[in-house]
């Protein structure tokens, strides 16, 4: 029965890696700056979910904290980029 869980974790990690690849392609080739920021947002959320699946796979608690830090810093980074696009400076 453990085979079902391990194979589903492998499939989920493949899906999330493909999602990260799509978002990275949008970051690299997005026609305008706001496309790149949306791609970055999707990229860090997919990376955070991939860290959570690694945590289920290994049974370790360290991945959860790494995922929480990725979520926090990703939000700060995306907000700073959006503020820069909106106003031309981050802190005013």
């Amino acid at each position, binding site marked *: *029965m*453990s085979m*079902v*869980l*391990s*194979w*589903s*974790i492998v*499939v*989920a*990690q493949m*899906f*999330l890696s*493909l*999602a*990260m690849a*799509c*978002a990275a*392609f*949008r970051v690299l080739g997005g026609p*305008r*700056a*706001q*496309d790149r*920021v*949306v*791609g970055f*947002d*999707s990229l860090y*959320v*997919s990376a*955070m*979910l991939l860290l*959570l*699946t690694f*945590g*289920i*796979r290994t*049974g370790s*608690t360290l991945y*959860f904290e790494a*995922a*929480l830090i990725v*979520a*926090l810093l990703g*939000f700060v980074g*995306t*907000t700073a980029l*959006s*503020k820069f*696009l*909106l106003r031309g400076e981050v802190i005013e």
Partner: protein
Amino acid sequence: MNEAAELPAWTLMIVAILLITGAATTLIGSLGLLRLRTFYERVHAPTLGTTFGTACIVIASVIYFSATGTRPVLNEFLILIFVTVTTPVTLMILIRASVLRDRSGNKQVASEQKRG
């Protein structure tokens, strides 16, 4: 994977289904981000991954770690609440920035194109 052998079968099935559903939803959202045409259509697609995908994978993680009993289980809801609350804020600021950039440039906003 050592603790997973002692778990009941239905718990593992629920965890597996939630994991695959969440990952597939996130993949669909990222494919939409890659495939849709204009920016105002593209900005909707990743919210699938940030709400439904995050919820499914976080609930799968909560069920797995509470069944194995290795650590307190409610920590993942921090991630769920944080991501669900902060993503609309970010995207609203980003859409306002995009509308401002479109209006200051030569390009018209998509809604104004439809209206006019």
